[in-house]
C-alpha cells in the first residue's frame, strides 16, 4: 500500500484538478479574497514607510505565498463529515487523507494559475524587486509553509467530528495566521516581546518566512534555523493530527456515520 501512495496522491490531484475546472470562476473569487489582505498591508506599510523598498517587495511576495499556501479543509473535508460523504472514503482501500491532500494541492494549482499573473503585474506596478538567488532559497520554506498550513487547517477541520461549528474554529485559526504570520505587520517590525513570540510560534513559518527569505530579510544561518523550526512544527502538527484523526474516526464510528 505505502509504495502506491505517491501514485494515488498524483491521481487524486489530477482528478481534483479536473473537478475544480468546473468552478474556475469561484477560484477567481478565492484569489481575490486571499490577495486582498497582503495588498492592504502593502498600501498601509508603503504609506507608513514611504522611502522603504522592503515592505513593497515583502508584501508582493506575501501575496504569492498566501495564494500558494491557502487551505480550505473546513470547506472540503469537514463538509464531507457533515453530509456523510466521508463514509464513501472510509470504505476505500486507501488512506482517507489522500483526498484532502489531493484537493488542497489542486486548489492551490488553480489559485496559482489565476493568482500568480496578478502577483507579477502587481510587482511590476509597485516596483518590487528580488534577487534570483534569494527567491530560489525561499522555495524550501514555501514548500514547508504549504505543508504546515495544510496540517494546521486539517487539524482544526477535524473538529467536525465533534462540532458543527468548525468554520468558526478555522476562522479563529486564520486570524492567528493573519496577526502573527506577517500579514497585519511584518514580524520584524513588531515590538518585543511580541516579535520573539511570533517568531517562535508556527504562524510565521506558515506565511511570512518564505516572503522574508525571498526579500533577503532573513538570510544564512537565521534562514536555516527558521526552516528547522518550521520542520519541527510540521512534525508536531502531523503527530497531533494523526492522534486526533484516530479519535475522530472512532467517534464517527460510535455516534453514527
Amino acid at each position, binding site marked *: 500500500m505505502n509504495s502506491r501512495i505517491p501514485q494515488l496522491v498524483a491521481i487524486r490531484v489530477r482528478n481534483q484538478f479536473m473537478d475544480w475546472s468546473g468552478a474556475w470562476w469561484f477560484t477567481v473569487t478565492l484569489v481575490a479574497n486571499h490577495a486582498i489582505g497582503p495588498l492592504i498591508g502593502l498600501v498601509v506599510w508603503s504609506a507608513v514607510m514611504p522611502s522603504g523598498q522592503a515592505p513593497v517587495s515583502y508584501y508582493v511576495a506575501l501575496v504569492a505565498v498566501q495564494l500558494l499556501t491557502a487551505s480550505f479543509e473546513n470547506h472540503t473535508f469537514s463538509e464531507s463529515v457533515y453530509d456523510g460523504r466521508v*463514509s464513501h472514503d472510509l*470504505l476505500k482501500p486507501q488512506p482517507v487523507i489522500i483526498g484532502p491532500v489531493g484537493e488542497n494541492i489542486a486548489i492551490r494549482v488553480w489559485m496559482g494559475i489565476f493568482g500568480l499573473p496578478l502577483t507579477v503585474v502587481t510587482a511590476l506596478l509597485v516596483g518590487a524587486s528580488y534577487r534570483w538567488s534569494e527567491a530560489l532559497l525561499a522555495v524550501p520554506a514555501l514548500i514547508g509553509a504549504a505543508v504546515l498550513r495544510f496540517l494546521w487547517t486539517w487539524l482544526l477541520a477535524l473538529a467536525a467530528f465533534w462540532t458543527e461549528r468548525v468554520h468558526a474554529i478555522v476562522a479563529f485559526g486564520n486570524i492567528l495566521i493573519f496577526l502573527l504570520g506577517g500579514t497585519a505587520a511584518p514580524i520584524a517590525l513588531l515590538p518585543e516581546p511580541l516579535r520573539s513570540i511570533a517568531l517562535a510560534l508556527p504562524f510565521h513559518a506558515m506565511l511570512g518566512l518564505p516572503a522574508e527569505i525571498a526579500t533577503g530579510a532573513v538570510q544564512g544561518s537565521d534562514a536555516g534555523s527558521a526552516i528547522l523550526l518550521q520542520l519541527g512544527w510540521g512534525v508536531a502538527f502531523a503527530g497531533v493530527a494523526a492522534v486526533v484523526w484516530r479519535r475522530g474516526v472512532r467517534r464517527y464510528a460510535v455516534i453514527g*456515520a
Partner: protein
Amino acid sequence: MAAVVVRDLSMTYRVPVRQGGLAAALKSVVRRRYREVHAVRDVSFEVAAGEVVGFVGPNGAGKTTAMKMMSGLLHPTAGTVEVLGYTPWQRRTPFLKQIALVRGSQPTGGLQELTVLDSLQYQRVLYEVPAGEYRRNLDELCELLELGPLLERQLRALSLGEKMRAGLALSLLYRPKVLFLDEPTLGLDVSAAAAIRRFLATYAGQTGATVLLTSHYMTDVESLCRRLILVDHGSVQYDGPLDQLSARLSPYKLIRVSAPSAAKEDFADIAEVVATHDISWDLRVPRDQVARATSMLLTTLDVVDLAIEEPSLENVIDRAYREGV
C-alpha cells in the same frame, strides 16, 4: 462456508436530551443529560457465501445501523462480526477490496464533476483491477446497466436513476464478494427500479456474490431474496425462508374466481367473500382448506377462471410490523 457471521451484535447510541424552554436550555449548558438509544440488540445470524438475503424492518428498526457495522463504518457497542474472515471496522485493505456498500440515499460518492468514465478509471487504479479484467467487467456492466450513454457525462448531472446505475457500476467494477445494498431502489420510478432489480438478480447469479439487501419495497425483496431477516426494535424477529413467513403470519390464501352466474350466497358454505368485481369474486380460505374449497367451486359453479394467490408480501410484512411475528 459462511461469508458473514454476526454474533450478539449490539449498538447503543448516547443522544443528548433536554426539556423545552429557556431555563432548560441554560441548564443544559452546565449539565447535559443523555439518553441511551438501543439501535441494535443482540443480533446473531450467518449468511452463506453466495446467498442473497433480505434484511427488512420498519423505519428505525436498526437494519441500516447493522449494515453499517457489517460493512465497517460503525464500531459496535458489543458483539462480533466477521465478513470473509475480517473484522469489518478494522477496515483492512484486503477486506475493503472485497466488499461494497451501495446506498440508495447516496449512490455515488467521490468527485461529482468527473465523468462516469473518469470515475470508473479511478476505481480501476484504486482497486488495482488488471487492464483486461477492467475492460471485460466494464463491457459487461455497460450492457447490463445500459451505461454507454452515461460514460461521458458528469456524475453531478445524472438523474437519480442514472446515479444509481453509475453507483452500482463503480461498486461492482472490482467484483466484490460481499455486497451490502441499502435501499438500492429508493426514489426510483417503476421502470428504473425494475431495471436495477433485474441487474442485481443477474449479477448475483453470474458472480455468486453474497448480497445483503435492505429495502422498504417488498418487490425488491420478493424478486431477489429467498431468505428474509426481519428486524424490529433492534432485534431479529424472524430469520428464514420468505414463503414460510407468509404461511406463519397469514393462515389464509386468496382464491380469485370468475363465475358469471354465481351469487354471493353460493359461496356461503365454501369460503368468505372479501371482494367482488363484476363477475369475479375474491375469497379468503384457510390454507388447509384450499384444495377442498377449490374442488367445491369447480363442481358447484360455472367457473370460467380461477387463481389461488398468496397474500401480498406487503400485507404480511405490515402485519409483522404491527403485530409482531
